[in-house]
């Protein structure tokens, strides 16, 4: 037997060395902006929207475009996660997207630095559009990386606080909390236990609780993610320590991690009508501006209140700020129809009526200055809160990084360890997290 396995090893080694020669070809497809956008053509557009009203909104946006450009047909593929978009951008081909949109700005750094999406600056120049004067400042920033404009803002998101006004009244709370210590007190007052669960939970603080992610909390502390030289600042900037401490305190005071997680397993889902905020199971919710439309559609049995998220007690003067981000759109480097694709991107991101219409349908924040001022913009008066958060100079986002949102995943992972009590030493944990972020970035370079 040993003799045979040695032979096997030799055969393997032999075939291995042959195959080595065959591997080097990685197939860079030649592509470019040589297509004629006035000819009959079809492009593929991938997006991440999945809720029925959102899918319908995309449909009417496309209809508007095809009406304006009857020669360009758009094949739409929805419900695409960033993983899949990333995968398809690498392979190209007929079925691969020409235009993509992503819900987060997390991957912009990766998209730009890798050349997955093309730099749109030349297209803007050719079309005579000044991007600086078209988009709000923060949105302008988060769609670029190192001067490379590989994405364009396609509506924006701002995060705030939703609260159950009826429950507030019952608990004798007059106004939404402005500082985290008020928030803590309110959350406790609003929590009504029942059995080993809750009849009503004041607030679901767990990092797994959909939008209650680390970066959404931390924006209220105005953190600096990367210091000079691109090294992680997680262990240096006290904002992170304060953010983690606050969330852990909420977890502990509202029943402890085990109990909250168990309750979470019984709750509805984020995108359906049985969202726990809609059903009244949770009285306060950290969420994006789109929740308002969904919550209203779900016809809850209470009044919905909207406010900016609280701020740390020592930053009370900055009340009104929040986390902002947005959907972005870009053109694949592998696309053979980049001019047609540009026509589409130009329409959905800069045509004022298109942007306003889409924002109205999908209940997002419009992403051009003209659209923000448009009289056609229809919104619930409560929605104004989010427009203000988006315009607030103290609002922040998470910066683009060469390996995309990996650093946010790492911070979030540490969050899981800390909220569950697995990691007790916050300072050491933050130092470890910072090191991890730095090595991951070095590995991606």
């Amino acid at each position, binding site marked *: 037997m040993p003799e045979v396995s040695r032979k096997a090893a030799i055969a393997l080694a032999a075939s291995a060395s042959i195959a080595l020669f065959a591997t080097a070809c990685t197939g860079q497809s030649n592509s470019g902006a040589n297509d004629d956008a006035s000819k009959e053509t079809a492009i593929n557009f991938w997006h991440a929207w999945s809720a029925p009203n959102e899918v319908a909104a995309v449909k009417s946006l496309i209809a508007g475009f095809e009406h304006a450009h009857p020669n360009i047909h758009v094949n739409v593929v929805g419900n695409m996660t960033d993983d899949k978009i990333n995968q398809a951008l690498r392979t190209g081909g007929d079925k691969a997207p020409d235009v993509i949109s992503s819900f987060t700005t997390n991957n912009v750094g990766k998209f730009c630095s890798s050349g997955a999406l093309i730099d749109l600056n030349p297209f803007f120049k050719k079309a005579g559009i000044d991007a600086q004067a078209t988009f709000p400042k923060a949105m302008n920033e988060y769609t670029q990386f190192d001067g490379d404009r590989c994405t364009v803002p396609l509506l924006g998101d701002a995060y705030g606080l939703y609260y159950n006004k009826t429950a507030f009244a019952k608990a004798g709370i007059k106004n939404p909390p402005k500082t985290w210590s008020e928030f803590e007190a309110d959350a406790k007052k609003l929590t009504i236990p029942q059995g080993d669960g809750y009849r009503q939970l004041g607030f679901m603080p767990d990092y797994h609780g959909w939008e209650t992610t680390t970066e959404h909390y931390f924006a209220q502390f105005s953190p600096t993610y990367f210091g000079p030289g691109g090294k992680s600042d997680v262990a240096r900037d006290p904002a992170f320590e304060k953010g983690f401490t606050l969330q852990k305190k909420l977890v502990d005071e509202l029943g402890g991690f*085990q109990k909250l997680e168990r309750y979470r397993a019984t709750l509805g889902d984020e995108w359906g009508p049985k969202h726990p905020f809609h059903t009244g199971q949770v009285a306060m919710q950290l969420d994006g501006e789109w929740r308002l439309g969904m919550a209203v559609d779900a016809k809850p049995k209470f009044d919905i209140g909207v406010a900016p998220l609280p701020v740390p007690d020592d930053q009370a003067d900055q009340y009104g700020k929040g986390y902002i981000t947005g959907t972005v759109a870009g053109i694949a480097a592998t696309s053979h129809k980049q001019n047609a694709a540009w026509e589409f991107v130009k329409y959905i991101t800069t045509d004022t009526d298109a942007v306003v219409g889409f924002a109205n349908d999908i209940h997002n924040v419009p992403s051009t200055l003209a659209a923000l001022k448009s009289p056609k913009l229809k919104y619930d008066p409560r929605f104004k809160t989010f427009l203000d958060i988006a315009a607030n100079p103290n609002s922040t986002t998470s910066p683009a990084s060469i390996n995309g949102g990996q650093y946010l995943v790492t911070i979030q992972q540490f969050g899981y360890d800390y909220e569950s009590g697995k990691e007790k030493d916050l300072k050491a944990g933050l130092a470890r997290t910072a090191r991890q972020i730095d090595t991951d970035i070095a590995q991606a370079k």
Partner: protein
Amino acid sequence: MSTLTTSTPAAAARPAGLAAKRRRSALKTLAFMSPGLIGFAVFFAYPLASTVYFSFMHYDGFKPPTWSGTKNWTYVFENYPLFWPALRNTLWLVVVMVTLRVLFGLGVGMLITKIKTGTGVFRTLFYLPYLAPPVAATMAFAFLLNPGTGPVNSLLEKTGIPAPGWFNDPTWSKPALTLLALWGVGDLMVIFMAALLDVPTEQYEAAELDGASPWQRFRYVTLPNISPIVMFAVVTGVIQTMQYYTQPLIAGKVASGVIQGAGTQFEPGYPDKSTLTLPQLVYNLGFQRFDYGSACVVALVLFALSMVFTAFLMRRRGGLIQAGD
């Protein structure tokens, strides 16, 4: 595979035209083996060599690969936070899940040989769960074991037994997966059943005449007869555990509640990295982080571990590749 060229047919060879005959039979062998040879070259040897090659390359799928030496290897072993947890989980699963599955399979196999009434019904019932598609079975278990609303915990709470968090609790997620694996024990049951029925009855009769207790009969008659099968079950169980992918991934996704949500990226391992296995790391590195080089490193670790146990299997059970006629 170049060793395939000379061969002799099973039929007796005549001295005349021996060389021509040999050549013809070599061609014949080659023709019959050709699908396998192509398959081996294209879907095994080439990609395996390629995996080795990429493990030394920095490659993100966009820019052409560049040589990076052992950087990916150090990254995976020293800095990739999911690697060691995945390896530890695999060890846990090998020790607990494989052992329990073999014992349970043997137990159920013995039970089925003893059942005399309604054997067919029992055997079908015991075997069916093995056939349930893994995604469907895992989702079913994620529902059954849902700590808040699942029927299992409802029953447990009615009986006053403290109900665990199952797939939502890092200490219970692997036991929950084990439960799922025990549910699908049908393959081992059938194998053990066949082996048990093969044990010569005379040996039992002789043992009974000697006044052996049931345990002694099991220990001195049954076990020696079926020990090769037990070994086979253990080793294939270990190899299957190395490849364990769909069940832990789906269980983690469903339990975490972030299943394929719009735009969200699911970091495998929920809760608290407790369901990570090596194949999931290949997916995480290769198709979420797009660090193809590091993904290949994990793939090679997976390969090495599988091959160690495969070699063990071939060595211990020469019968598996018996020389034939």
